[in-house]
């Protein structure tokens, strides 16, 4: 590794913005993610067509000026359905990440702070959850408690919990022996307060990176569940469901399968690039390696 001069780098927001522009992954990922989010927001106030409006005469039309992505087997506009479907994907994945963080991070921090048998027990339980095939268990949960967006969120969220618990614990464990934490302990602060004041701010960046990764995985998982008919129910459009409907009609109308799939790929790609970029920016060690 080459020696780098210890230059006085600018700090604060300006440095962050400069770093963001220099990081291609982050920039591309951020733009894609922002566009997808904007598309979801726009769909609340405007879509080219009403997605609940069926025009049987227009069914399975190819690409045209009126319908840039064509129409489906009920004559609904595919572009409008993809726009509305993005809401569902984003909402499910985002809340599932929230569940994972909301439960996993406190558990991981608690395990790291207490150590001993509590730590051991929590981590062993983590192993058990990891041993369950996630997709299969999600299918089981949605099938038993009924299909629908809410149960899909819960099913995906449960498997985010051990991921965040593990990441938070590993991060917190590396911080507890640090001098500033020792100083805080010496000044008589309790473990909970130290966790809130010193541990959490310092593991926030790795949690953010993990969050974008789980977000992307959540979008893929939601698409899988709704492909199996276990996610959002019709008439609410969802990308996975659109692919399921496309499968039997692919011989006559391949465009039905192309566009919803591309929507998934682009969204996941954007989030993954964003996550990679964030990691590079937040982890100076990696930054130097590249």
């Amino acid at each position: 590794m080459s020696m780098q001069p210890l230059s006085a780098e600018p700090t604060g927001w300006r440095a962050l913005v400069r770093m963001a522009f220099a990081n291609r992954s982050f920039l591309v990922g951020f733009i894609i993610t922002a566009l997808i989010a904007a598309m979801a927001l726009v769909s609340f106030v405007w879509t080219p067509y009403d997605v609940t409006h069926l025009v049987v005469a227009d069914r399975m039309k190819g690409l045209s000026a009126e319908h840039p992505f064509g129409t489906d087997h009920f004559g609904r506009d595919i572009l409008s359905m993809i726009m509305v479907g993005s809401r569902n994907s984003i909402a499910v994945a985002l809340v599932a990440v929230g569940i994972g963080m909301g439960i996993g991070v406190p558990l991981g921090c608690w395990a790291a702070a207490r150590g001993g048998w509590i730590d051991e027990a929590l981590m062993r339980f983590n192993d058990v959850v990891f041993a369950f095939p996630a997709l299969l268990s999600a299918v089981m949960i949605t099938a038993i408690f009924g299909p629908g967006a809410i149960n899909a969120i819960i099913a995906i969220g449960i498997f985010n919990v051990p991921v965040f618990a593990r990441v938070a614990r590993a991060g917190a464990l590396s911080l507890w022996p640090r001098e500033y934490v020792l100083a805080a302990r010496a000044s008589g602060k309790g473990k909970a307060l130290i966790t809130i004041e010193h541990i959490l701010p310092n593991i926030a960046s790795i949690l953010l990176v993990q969050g974008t990764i789980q977000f992307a995985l959540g979008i893929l998982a939601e698409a899988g569940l709704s492909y199996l008919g276990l996610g959002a129910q019709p008439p609410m459009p969802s990308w996975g469901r659109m692919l399921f409907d496309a499968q039997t009609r692919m011989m006559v109308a391949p465009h039905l399968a192309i566009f919803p799939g591309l929507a998934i790929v682009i969204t996941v790609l954007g989030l993954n690039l964003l996550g990679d970029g964030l990691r590079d920016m937040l982890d100076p060690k990696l930054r130097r390696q590249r």
Partner: protein
Amino acid sequence: MTAFLAKRIGIGLLTLMVASAVVFGVLEILPGDPAQLMLGMNATPEALANLREQMGLNQPVLLRYFNWVGGMLVGDFGRSFTYSSPVIDLIAERVVVSLPLAVISLILSTAIAIPVGIFSAARRGKAADTVSMGAAQIGVAIPNFWFALLLIYVFAVWLRLVSSGGFPGWNAGIWPGIKALLLPAVALALPQAAILARVTRSAMLEVLGEDYIRTARAKGMPRRTVLWRHALRNAMIPVLTILGLQFAFLLAGTIIIENVFYLPGLGRLVFQAITQRDLIVVEGVVMLLVASVVVVNIIVDILYAVVDPRLRIAA
């Protein structure tokens, strides 16, 4: 090594015990009674009473749990109520589809990903690296069932090289069987290969920065030898971890792909059992899959020790 193994096996057994309690518990705390759940709301009281008797629901909870676990230990997974045959027979019928599918995809993905990962690491920052890692970045984002649909369209609908789904059974011969598994295996393998290639590349990069690599190069060892003999072996640990995870995923995660291709595998069995509320089948298959994840993890741990002698001594 023995102590290391004993500890890993102990943790594995503990995992299985907790998992069995969780599976049993989840189905136990389900609202309503399992017999009612399985037969639906319109079931006659006699049918309900019969099923309750057959499932042993009139016995105390703990006794039922131990009967269930004890049965599984001797290969008795209970009797399916929709197929009216022993669950173990159903599993045996389906494993011969799912296991070859998982093995073929794992071989495919490893054969693609490891050379690509090494190649990329060796040419870090060059055009070849940028292109292959860009492709991997896209590969990670592709849902395997969408990729499967595209493959069906190109190879089955358009080129008519293979059928778009179904499985002729191994009785029809080895080649027709493998041919039916080819598209599903490719669909499963490519997104996995993308992940594996990225992991291999970053593991290789980490190792290539080590002092002993420079020493090996400095004493005149050819680049190629350093790459394959010194670097690859040391980069194997994270690669093995991902391989283990992927094999476990492939065994269970084929649930969607098997539905896309109408393959009579474990995933489809459990999916149908779930939708038909055949809980005994669900319990059995889930426990079997959890057990295979545990076994794969133990094998991966043993392989760690084989690859890295330091772990053998430390343990």
